[in-house]
């Protein structure tokens, strides 16, 4: 088994078997995290670089902890204080990092396809930590791990995702990954934030938040960028909260044991009313631990593939 490709660019590039292998490995990694002694030696002597062209405290920290727990040397490059700002091209920067003997480059970029563009030029493995509106595979994997801990099989499960679908790489990665495992994904959001042809990714577009959540096994809210209001995608925060938030009533339409997720950070009172965010069904805080476990699994499996070659 193991992973087929050198890089983890997106859920598009993974098979159902590979996704399950990552999730099973992540379950073991989670035991390591929870064991108290968090050190493993899987990545000892290996070097990992995070290359972030976009700010993200949580994703970056999650990757850094994952690599530290497994004993790798890691370095961070971000948009401030490096060549990234000095007009050097993405490819030049990536090649430089590659030539320094880096094993894995974890990259976040505001342009869709940026990791896909550099990966073929590099010896290092590239992990996509979010590219534009395209994909965020490790977020989807951690969401799926959160689900996998609560049900044994994805087959026939209904997952509801509500919010700004258009700009969301989390939706794309989840829709692709969940469909591959046999789950049914239903989405809802303002029509101005619903991308044309989303049905062809195997998802169903619902008519309302309640319709989207009806009989769902899991419900996911998405962060809405408040600046989208300026591009006329919705008129005001209060109107958004009234018509598009996941309310108590919407959550009640889901299955009784359904749980609520959110990739964070959440705008309280906008996409989720505070009482919903904090409700018993919310597993938002558990998702964060799973993020580290999934990233440990991804780094472990990519490194195992490198060691074999």
């Amino acid at each position, binding site marked *: 088994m193991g992973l087929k490709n050198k890089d983890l660019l997106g859920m*598009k590039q993974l098979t159902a078997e590979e996704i399950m292998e990552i999730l099973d490995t992540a379950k073991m990694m989670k035991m390591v995290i929870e064991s108290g002694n968090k050190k493993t030696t899987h990545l000892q002597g290996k070097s990992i670089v995070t290359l972030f062209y976009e700010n993200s405290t949580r994703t970056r920290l999650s990757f850094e902890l994952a690599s530290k727990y497994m004993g790798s040397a890691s370095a961070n490059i971000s948009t401030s204080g490096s060549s990234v700002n000095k007009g050097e*091209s*993405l*490819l030049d920067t990536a090649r430089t990092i590659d030539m320094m003997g880096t094993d894995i480059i974890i990259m976040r*970029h505001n*342009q*869709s*396809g*940026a990791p*896909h*563009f550099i990966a073929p030029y590099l010896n290092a493995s590239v992990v996509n930590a979010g*590219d*534009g*509106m*395209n*994909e965020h595979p490790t977020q989807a994997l951690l969401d799926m791990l959160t689900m996998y801990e609560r049900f044994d099989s994805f087959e026939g499960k209904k997952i509801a995702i509500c919010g700004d679908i258009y700009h969301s*790489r989390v939706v*794309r990665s989840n829709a692709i990954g969940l469909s591959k495992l046999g789950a049914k994904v239903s989405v809802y959001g303002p029509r101005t934030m619903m*991308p*044309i*042809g*989303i049905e*062809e*990714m195997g998802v169903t577009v619902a008519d309302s938040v309640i319709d989207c959540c009806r009989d769902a096994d899991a419900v996911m809210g998405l962060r809405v960028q408040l600046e989208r209001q300026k591009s006329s995608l919705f008129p005001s925060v209060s109107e958004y909260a009234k018509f598009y938030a996941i309310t108590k009533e919407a959550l009640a339409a889901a299955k009784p044991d359904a749980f609520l997720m959110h990739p964070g950070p959440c705008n309280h009172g906008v996409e989720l009313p505070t009482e919903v965010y904090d409700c018993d069904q919310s597993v938002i805080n558990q998702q964060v631990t799973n993020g580290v476990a999934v990233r440990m699994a991804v780094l472990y499996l990519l490194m195992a593939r490198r060691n074999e070659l």
Partner: protein
Amino acid sequence: MRLILKNCNYLGKEQRDIYIADGKFSEKYPDDQADRIIDVKGALVTPGLIDMHVHLREPGLEYKEDIASGTRAAARGGFTGVCCMPNTDPVVDNPAIVASIIKRAEEVGNCRVYPIGAASKGLKGEELSEIGLMKEAGIVAVSDDGKPISTAGFMRKVLEYCSDFDVPVLNHCEDKSLSGGAMNEGPVSTSIGIRGIPSASEDVMIARDIIIAEYLGLPVHLCHVSTKSGMRMIRDAKARGVKVTCETCPHYFTLTDDYCVDYSANYKMHPPLGTREDVEAVIEAIIDGTVDTIVTDHAPHHQDEKEIEFSLALNGIVGLESSFALCYTYLVKTGKITLDRLMDLMCHNPSDILKLGRGGMEIGDDADLAVFDIENEFTFDKNKMLTKGRNTPYDGWKLYGETLYTVMGGNITYEKLC
């Protein structure tokens, strides 16, 4: 120069020898009076091709292309006439720049170059440029290409003013308030997370221009039409007598937006590659006469502008050296259109729209012709291109119709070396 081409497959109609003297097609003369005799061994001979939509980038953007390299590429594509768009630096919006382009093209001598002037000063879409003076200096049309002619009100003034000077108006159709993405909007853009450009962006402006042209009773030419409903509107407008003409490009009948999935900017242009339905509609429009001419929209860029992140890359691909082969392979060889129709699309119609008086092969006409190998398949190789640009999506494609010779005004401007 006295040149004889022996064993020509003349327009796919008959085997004949072609005699050229003093830059013109001439009567037969004895072999020993020729400076050169070429046996083309049954290869196809056509009139020299004309491309009315090319970006030669000079003045100012010579790092992408210049008149010398662009016209060498044109000659390699079988072209003896190209029209160059005014979005250079500075913009071609005054007679001095027009004259300098014509002078430079004559010095180089690879191809006839017909400049297109800017419709508006600085391509800003606000004030008319000196269209009358530019016409005297040699422009054959005006356009703000790269951008649409800004507003309906300004378009009306351009059409009216140009009618005084009998200058054709060519418009790049894009409603900027709808565009703003990097590829066609649809399932593919949604799947790969690239901001889409709806086909409605092109269609809204096609509709606008048809309405204004019809209202004024004046002609308008629509550039690089790529959409199904755009073609339908133009077909309908022509049927009721609106003086609208249009062009399309080889990439709009050979490629779809599916090619964008790997984020290669060699599939990024404006208008963007459409769906399979758009491709079929473009082919139908080529067959039924809705399309008047096939152009390349040859748009060379430096690799630093193309081999980067998809959304940041500039729009456009090079096309002069692949155009005939793509048209021949995908339209004529497949039986969709005849060779005669292709000659209308690639020579006679653009000559008529712009009143260039080209394409004749009678005795006494300027000797402009091209010789193509339509029997043997060849592999299109981007490294053999003569343009400075390397931004082609066709590298490695197997095609028919490689250029063997191009003759312009009796001089050999391209010769395939084995």
